[in-house]
């Protein structure tokens, strides 16, 4: 009986289902933790306590907020397209769960080890742009439309340097499998890709901040200009799903960054998923730190940074990497 069950558990389909369920739980919990962390970081940087009243040191604040969001009425504007309007938040969150499948949390803690893991993540995370586009179009609101137009042009622009940075690492490791890329950096801390490819790491991280619509590149939801951008008309869990999706894309991005550049689960003392989580959290905290340090850029500045700096630098980096591999390898 037990061997049969173990055999069943080892079936790839069952493994994927278990991984997806665990990912959903992980996403939910991490959403709460990150919202709390974000507000605490914001508070401490501005020399105030942040959330404090719900639970000791406000630790249950995001749980209370989640309860509030679930309890709120879902309102659709009169002119909005009902299908697109409600499809958008679901389409925003649903694909991100798939992005967790090829991420190696530990030496064996991977949902689905496939040799095109990186491509899978990039493909599914690109769907978020479509969701923002649908939200802006379906809301029948000019702020939403402007926000989604910004989201699309920003995502299209910054996907290129992101891919160029990823490509440099893929050239170097000769693989698109995140587990294998992690294993190529296993010798020591000095063999992490961030030391070999610092420029690629910089480009990747800047593009990641822009791709996840985080400050200082949060133009799609620039509240001073567009009220809330693409999610202006969303209330309750419609907004909640967008919010959760934003944080989940941050986690995916930082997890990929720690796989590609920071050696994944490899660490100085004891290898394992704690190293992976620590690196991911470190990058997430850095993103929060950026948010509360830099003012929002103007839209022409945003696109100038991408087209005039990141893409040429990314291309140059790629050419140099290819030459070095050709000569050395």
């Amino acid at each position, binding site marked *: 009986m037990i061997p049969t069950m173990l055999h069943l558990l080892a079936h790839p389909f069952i493994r994927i289902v278990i991984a997806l369920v665990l990912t959903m739980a992980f996403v939910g919990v991490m959403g709460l933790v990150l919202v709390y962390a974000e507000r605490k970081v914001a508070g401490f940087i501005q020399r105030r*306590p942040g959330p404090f009243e719900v639970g000791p040191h406000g630790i249950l604040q995001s749980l209370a907020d989640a309860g509030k969001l679930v309890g709120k009425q879902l309102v659709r504007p009169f002119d909005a397209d009902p299908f697109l309007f409600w499809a958008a938040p679901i389409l925003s969150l649903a694909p991100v769960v798939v992005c967790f499948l090829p991420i190696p949390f530990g030496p064996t803690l991977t949902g689905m080890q496939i040799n095109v893991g990186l491509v899978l993540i990039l493909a599914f995370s690109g769907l978020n742009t479509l969701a923002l586009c649908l939200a802006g179009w379906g809301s029948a609101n000019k702020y939403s439309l402007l926000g989604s137009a910004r989201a699309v042009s920003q995502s299209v622009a910054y996907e290129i340097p992101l891919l160029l940075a990823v490509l440099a690492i893929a050239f170097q490791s000769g693989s698109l499998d995140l587990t294998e890329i992690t294993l190529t950096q296993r010798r020591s801390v000095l063999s992490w890709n961030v030391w070999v490819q610092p420029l690629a790491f910089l480009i990747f991280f800047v593009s990641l901040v822009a791709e996840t619509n985080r400050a200082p590149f949060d133009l799609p939801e620039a509240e001073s200009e567009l009220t809330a951008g693409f999610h202006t008309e969303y209330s309750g869990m419609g907004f909640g799903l967008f919010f959760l999706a934003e944080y989940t894309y941050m986690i995916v991005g930082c997890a990929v960054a720690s796989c590609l550049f920071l050696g994944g689960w490899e660490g100085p003392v004891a290898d394992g998923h704690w190293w992976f989580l620590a690196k991911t959290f470190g990058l997430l905290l850095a993103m929060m*730190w950026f948010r509360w340090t830099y003012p929002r850029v103007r839209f022409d500045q945003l696109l100038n940074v991408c087209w005039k700096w990141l893409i040429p630098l990314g291309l140059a980096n790629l050419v140099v990497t290819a030459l070095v591999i050709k000569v050395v390898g």
Partner: protein
Amino acid sequence: MAMVAKTLKRLWSLVVGLEVTGKEFFKPWLTVHYPRQQVGNLDTYRGHIELVPRDDNPAIPRCIMCSRCQDICPSRCISIAFHPVENGERTPKPLWLNPGIVSPGSHGAPPAPERIERVLDRFDLNYSLCSLCGLCVQNCPVAAIRFSRHVYFCGTSRQDFSIDLLERMKRGNGTKPHPE
């Protein structure tokens, strides 16, 4: 070359920004954490008005019931009730000054001393109307009204902002704990 130098300089400014916020992160809070702490320096705070007690008897207000404050108040939020006392005997009915009528003599010199003594019964303030202009404080001939330091004043109904200032003064103008 100059452009690269300029860009590097600008990139360095980003690092400086991170350094500033990174340092602020570890410094102590600057905000007053209200229910656990309270603000200290309230000398310049304008709370609602309160009555000033006499120096010799803290149970009796300095107020001489001239009703100037009631007349000058642009929001009509002060109403005063007092008893005239004649030969030591109180008249049974309190006299309410009509706030609609400006009493004669109220905008000139302080009222001439009268034979009839007055005893203040009520000094009602409707704080929800008050604009804190301070005319009553400025125009009181005997400095019987001042701004309180009542910062944490809140209520759940309109009635909570109708205050009998005489009673409040007898309770110590907020210096003693509330009986409730």
